[in-house]
């Protein structure tokens, strides 16, 4: 079985490692870099708990090999709050609107919302639910999550698209 030297950027810091060919990116982040905010739910790409940003776009880290991330810019949920610990608007809104209970799906949801708001400045409820359809939540019934996203959109002052 092959081993590979990879160089990548994770949450703004460059890092190098030698990894087995079959090591999943999710496991590399969690076990090698100790970034356990990214969660592993189904390991076959349907639940979205492992969602991260790869070169600015969401991706399921359980469906990528660490070797494929060579040269990539990775952002995980650990990078979302400010350096001073101040919560990102979506994090605060999820708390305010009961958008999480056990929190297992939450990091994946946060990364999806970040790409959503980068792509569609003022999504309405239909667009939000469509974007979130790739993230499964067992606890909340989704309404609190949708309310949180709508609250972030509203407070950003943009008109719905």
């Amino acid at each position: 079985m092959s081993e590979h030297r990879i160089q990548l950027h994770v949450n703004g810091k460059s890092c190098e490692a030698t990894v087995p060919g079959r090591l999943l990116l999710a496991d590399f982040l969690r076990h090698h870099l100790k970034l356990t905010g990214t969660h592993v739910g189904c390991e076959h790409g349907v639940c979205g708990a492992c969602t991260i940003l790869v070169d600015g776009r969401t991706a399921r880290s359980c469906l990528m090999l660490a070797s494929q991330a060579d040269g990539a810019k990775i952002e995980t949920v650990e990078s979302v709050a400010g350096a001073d610990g101040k919560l990102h608007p979506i994090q605060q809104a999820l708390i305010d609107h009961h958008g999480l209970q056990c929190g297992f799906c939450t990091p994946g949801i946060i990364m999806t919302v970040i790409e959503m708001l980068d792509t569609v400045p003022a999504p309405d409820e239909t667009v939000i639910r469509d974007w979130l359809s790739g993230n499964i939540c067992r606890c909340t019934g989704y309404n609190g999550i949708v309310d949180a996203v709508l609250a972030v959109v509203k407070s950003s002052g943009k008109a719905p698209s």
Partner: protein
Amino acid sequence: MKPAPFDYVRPDSVDEALRLLSTLEGAKVLAGGQSLMPMLNMRFVQPDHLIDISRLDLNGIQLQDGRLHIGATTRQRDIEFSPLVQQHAPLFVEALQKVGHVQTRNRGTIGGSLCHMDPSAELPTVCMTMDADIVVRSAERGTRAIPMREFVVAYMTPAIELDELVTEIRLPVWARGHGYALEEFARRHGDFALASAAVLIELSNDVISRAAVTIGGLAIAPTRIAETEALLIGQNCAQVDVEAAAAPCGEIEAVSDTQASAQYRQQLARVMASRAIARAIDRARR
């Protein structure tokens, strides 16, 4: 679950990839990984070698001589947002909005979807509707183009040799203003369709002059329904008997499995076809 051990290799050029494909035994090609990685993680496949082609210069979208040329490793998300595709093959855009989820479309590729060849997948269905040509290449025999109608040999098995790589998909475009629609039925958003219908319509002086109707999810491959197409052609767009035209769509053989019985799939095919035909005609009239 984690994949069984394999040797991972990432060639820098198509030639190198082809050389690897023709010399390595037990090799699978990895592009976007959205279909293959789940199978690897669950150990449904256990290749000895994984050839990562995601860095090869096989992506890009161009319009040439009335055909859209889409590189095999072009990400589905890039196709969905391509102005060329939105203008010349809007059926593709409608289909892509139903493919998986945003996260899977960010990585998934068109070539990968075609090689995975899930019978209910949207991209093979629209490629069949548009009479795509699938261009493949091997180190020993060079390039050949396989018409979509000949691309599927068995369940989830495309007609490519072990040493061949899909490099490009070519789609002849339909006339400006053509009508299009894709209807599918799945129990949950993002689930594989139990049945789907993709329709393209061209009008000439309010008469349907050209029609393509494909049913997905019933047979091992998306199936063009020639009888429905023949029933549509020649009808005045304001007086089409949609139900009668859609009826043959429910008559193809369908698979029965834990998701749905054959009869239910056939019923769904008829209904999806009716809806898609009505919507495509409506779009063509605007």
